């Protein structure tokens, strides 16, 4: 193996903080695609910036193509292509102006430039859009243009910082294809991501957590350590959320999630299967061994997820809706339409969500899922049709309806300067909790989410997982019957995600109705039903298994949720 990047005992510490990177040692093979995988705050960006020569190591040794990237940056810059988060594009410059700028900066001239432009534009499918401003491109197109700008000058090392973040599976797959083809030419690629399914496609992966590399191997060998430890409980009778809760109590089980109609478990050791009897899966239930995933390996390396019980669900009462209300239409969209000028973001969408159901909204970027979501929780007014919550039209009495719902926004919109306690006090206050009741509720949330150690800390300084807990606490304090979650787990590590979903499952079991948007395909499978939105229209509605069943072919008898997503969107395109 020829080493392109060599890192030894590398440490990076920013003033006044614990090390962002600690004792990192890794060798990156020449011509390979390496995934840097881990949650936000794991140190992925810091490591990439050190490799790009943008940061100076505090301690340790780093060599890129045999040179020190920080001290010898003049000699190295031409050989490194670095795409930062947000792609580094000038939004008020057109596609071709962005390309020309970066070509000039990277010393790509004349005929070489023309040749590269032609190739990259064809490659990225942007030839038709050269005059369009970068700011007016879709997320997927921006990502491709960002990549094209980085590739000018034909670097030997390509560093990509979360190119897939906030981008839908279709665009992510497209980008993969492009990078794969390029890497064939001997380019060394580092690809950072928080999506573990994305990382499975890499030649090798570095699993990162809290500034350290937890594992560094090929995805295959990491997964092979999990072989025989991944199970499905199929043919379940009864409530699979209860079943999951029971199964996680079994000492053999270190992790479990819902996957469509099945429950997926990971065991501590090969062959140590849990007893299905006390779990209550019903007489027909069976255990079937399934293919391991990279995520299983990661969770196992992090020590497993142990949260079987939701302390939150334990303290909230069973939701009782008024008896005269239709229990099958707690959330309802009737011919729901939203137009912005001439553009129809949501087009005659209909659905009903039952009491205690977890309902997922999925779709590519800009497809209208956020608009639909925002209308259902009263943040946007529909142009036509109705958005109903517990039978109340949000247009007519939005504040009455809002009192009934809890809302957790993307990126946890908390007040950054306020402490944990003040955030709780504020959010309980705006939902009308006062006096002893408020005090009691705040105390209860602190207990339930184990927030006591962070009481006096401003929310900006909290670790991401704790922020997520706090955001959920703020959303549920007033005891809402409905919960709206907008990409609630993006960037959070898998263990914290498990914990989050344990709470959501617990709430659903208590009769809370949940509506959620997500880009994680595995998370989509936790839902009871999914609505797939594309170009403002509802193109599919059903259980995760219904959707997967729709795309079964001879070649792909066992499609994943991502396969289903991509195929259904493509089919809608063809119509």
């Amino acid at each position, binding site marked *: 193996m020829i080493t392109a990047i060599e890192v030894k005992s590398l440490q990076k510490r920013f003033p006044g903080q614990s090390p962002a990177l600690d004792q990192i040692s890794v060798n990156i093979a020449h011509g390979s695609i390496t995934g840097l995988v881990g949650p936000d705050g794991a140190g992925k960006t810091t490591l990439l910036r050190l490799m790009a*020569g943008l940061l*100076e190591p505090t301690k340790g040794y780093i060599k890129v193509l045999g040179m020190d990237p920080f001290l010898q940056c003049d000699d190295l810059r031409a050989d490194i292509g670095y795409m930062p*988060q947000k792609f*580094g594009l*000038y939004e008020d*410059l057109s596609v071709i102006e962005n390309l020309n700028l970066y070509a*000039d900066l*990277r*010393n790509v001239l004349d005929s070489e430039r023309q040749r590269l432009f032609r190739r990259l534009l064809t490659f990225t499918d942007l030839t038709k859009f050269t005059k369009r401003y970068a700011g007016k491109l879709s997320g997927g197109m921006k990502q491709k243009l960002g990549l094209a700008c980085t590739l000018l000058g034909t670097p030997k090392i390509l560093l990509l910082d979360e190119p897939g973040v906030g981008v839908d599976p279709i665009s992510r797959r497209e980008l993969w294809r492009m990078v794969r083809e390029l890497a064939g030419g001997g380019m060394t690629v580092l690809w950072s991501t928080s999506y573990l399914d994305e990382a499975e496609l890499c030649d090798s992966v570095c699993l990162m957590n809290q500034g350290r590399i937890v594992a560094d191997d090929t995805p295959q060998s990491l997964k092979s350590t999990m072989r025989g430890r991944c199970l499905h409980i199929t043919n379940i009778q009864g409530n699979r959320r209860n079943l999951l809760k029971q199964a996680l109590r079994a000492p053999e089980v270190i992790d479990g999630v819902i996957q469509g109609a099945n429950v997926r478990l990971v065991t501590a050791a090969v062959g140590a299967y849990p007893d299905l009897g006390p779990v209550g899966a019903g007489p027909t239930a069976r255990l079937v061994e399934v293919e391991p995933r990279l995520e299983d390996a990661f969770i196992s390396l992090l020590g497993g997820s142990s949260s079987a019980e939701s302390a939150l669900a334990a303290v909230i009462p069973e939701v009782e809706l008024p008896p005269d209300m239709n229990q099958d239409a707690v959330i309802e969209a009737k011919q729901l339409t939203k137009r912005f000028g001439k553009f129809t973001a949501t087009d005659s969408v209909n659905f009903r969500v039952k009491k205690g159901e977890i309902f997922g909204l999925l779709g590519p970027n800009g497809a209208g899922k956020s608009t639909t979501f925002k209308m259902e929780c009263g943040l946007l007014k529909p142009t036509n049709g109705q958005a109903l919550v517990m039978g109340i039209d949000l247009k007519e009495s939005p504040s009455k309806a809002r009192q009934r719902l809890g809302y957790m926004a993307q990126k946890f919109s908390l007040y950054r300067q306020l402490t944990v306690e003040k955030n709780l006090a504020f959010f309980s206050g705006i939902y009308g909790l006062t006096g002893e009741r408020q005090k009691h509720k705040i105390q209860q949330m602190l207990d339930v989410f184990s927030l006591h150690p962070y009481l006096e800390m401003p929310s900006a300084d909290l670790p991401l997982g704790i922020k997520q807990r706090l955001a959920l606490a703020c959303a549920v304090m007033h005891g809402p019957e409905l919960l709206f979650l907008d990409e609630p787990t993006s960037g959070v590590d898998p263990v914290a995600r498990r914990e989050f979903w344990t709470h959501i499952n617990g709430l659903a079991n208590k009769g809370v109705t949940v509506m959620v948007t997500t880009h994680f395909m595995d998370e989509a499978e936790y839902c009871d039903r999914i609505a797939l939105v594309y170009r403002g229209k509802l193109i599919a509605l059903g259980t995760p298994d219904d959707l997967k069943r729709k795309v079964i072919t001879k070649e792909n008898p066992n499609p994943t949720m991502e396969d289903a997503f991509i195929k259904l969107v493509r089919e809608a395109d063809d119509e």
Partner: protein
Amino acid sequence: MNSGGSGFSLRRLRALNKKEFLQIVRDPSSILIAFILPVVMLFFIGYAINLDTSRVRVGLLALDGGEKAKSFISALQASPVIDLYPILSQESLLREMAQKKLRGAVVLQNDFSAKVIIGQGGAAIQVIADGGEPNTANFVQAYIMGIWQNWSLAHSQENAIKTTRPIDIHTRAWFNPSAISRNFLIPGSIAIVLTVIGAMLTSMVVAREWERGTMEALLSTPIKKLELLLSKIIPYYTLGMAAMFLCLIVATTIMDVPFRGSILILCVISTLFLGCVLGMGLLISTVTRNQFNAASATLLIGFLPAMILGGIVFEIASMPLILRFISRLFPTRYYANSLQTIFQTGFVPELIWTNAFFLIILMFFWFGITAKKTKRNLE
């Protein structure tokens, strides 16, 4: 493979400048700040802030109806700066003053005429001014005293009594003969316009590059520090000079402010000043890396000191010592002073070169720190 070499590259600089100009042209807020704001500001400062007191309303409480009193009253009425308003009683005088309907008042006691006729200097008038606005109060007092002195001089001569004053004072305003404060304020306000463009706009666009992640992308290319700095200086220097000429044209044509100096000197001095504020703006954005903080910081250390300590609205000579000293640390006073001189007087070498000297020192100071703080990495 790469033909660019490792030194300074004009081609890269040109590409960066082109990018910057495209962004300026396409960003309505840049255009607004560079071309609309200056004009609005000139009009505001030129017409809204008016330090002249043209026709002040003054009350007259005449308790004496005699010949001499009438004569003095007609002298008051003849004044072009006083709008005389008769009042009948002490109470109504108090009320009108309190309601700010009057800026001041003249009271003639009932023995006024009699005392003037006796001619032993016992005749007096009472002048009341509203101290709530010291500036206006001073004007009122000075105007009325002037009228009184002239009148009493005439009348005492008539009566051959030796109250003759040995010195006859005539005020003549040089360089700004009609003493229009606009002629003094407008040139100064060009300094404010250039501070806004040089410091505020520049710091915000650089901070925007940090916020949007484009700075990180730029830094990862083979770009050089000098190229990076010049790519911000050249476009915003050009923009600043364009705004300066726009102000010059608006001031001299629409607002009738005289211009007695040379365009060349104006350009030289403006270049030095822009150097200072561009350096300041670049430094702020490099340190803050965030548009909101950059804007707050430029407001605090750029705009406000310029406005208050620059000698544009408030005269530096009448400031306390400590403020006079602090004002020397900001480039605005040298530039504003030069502008006022160039516009109103013309070329005064000692003054202009002294100002230029201080501007050069400050420019090196700000650019020195900026160059030190600007790095080719994220540290």
